[in-house]
């Protein structure tokens, strides 16, 4: 649990191009506290990405959801729409079960991406450039 927490924190700090010495210090700080207290790191420090940002003084508004899951999600919905349109406009090929399965799969994948990336934001380029 702690190892994964530190890895997620480190990823964000590296993206922010924080000095490796500072990153190491921040990770040791969390590790030392968790080992002393025996607490769950998320319970004590919050989500690693958010904590890493707070610790180095970056505003939460610099967080963005990565663009590619949104693109994949949009593309999947477009495929679903095209398939549905195709099924309706080709009278010889109408299979409602296939149609609903496609909608279900697209919905599940999109929701999965949304949930997975909700707590794994990236830092906006605006901040990285400054």
């Amino acid at each position: 649990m702690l190892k994964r927490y530190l890895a997620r924190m480190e990823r964000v700090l590296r993206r922010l191009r924080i000095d490796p010495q500072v990153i190491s210090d921040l990770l040791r700080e969390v590790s030392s506290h968790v080992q002393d207290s025996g607490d769950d790191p998320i319970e004590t420090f919050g989500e690693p990405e958010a904590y890493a940002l707070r610790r180095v003084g970056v505003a939460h508004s610099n967080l963005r959801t990565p663009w590619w899951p949104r693109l994949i999600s949009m593309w999947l919905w477009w495929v679903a729409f095209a398939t549905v349109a195709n099924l309706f406009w080709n009278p010889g090929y109408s299979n409602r079960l296939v149609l609903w399965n496609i909608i279900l799969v697209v919905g599940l994948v999109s929701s999965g991406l949304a949930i997975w990336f909700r707590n794994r934001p990236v830092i906006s380029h605006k901040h990285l450039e400054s």
Partner: protein
Amino acid sequence: MAQHLDRRSQWLKGLLDLCVLGTLQHQARYGYEIAQLLTESGLGQVKGGTLYPVLGRLEEAGLVESEWRPGDSGPNRKYYELSQEGRVAFTELGAQWQTFVTSLELLIDGRVPT
């Protein structure tokens, strides 16, 4: 009860810098020790996610200094101690807080100057 704790936590947020400086006035301490001391002092629980950014800010401002020391049986620990500047700031903040509390007590006791 929850409302009471919320209010206490709001107050503590505004005073955390002073409280943390206060825990360091006699000796160097590590983060978890500071958190425990604040809890034992009756100031409520201060989580690591709140405490360390404050310590970092105080360090950046030059009010505290830190160094890693090997733990006796546990992990290595980062000890914080007041710098000379920190001692001056703590004395000033303490005096300001005393003035504020005195005014507040007058208000609560209904002894407001008319």
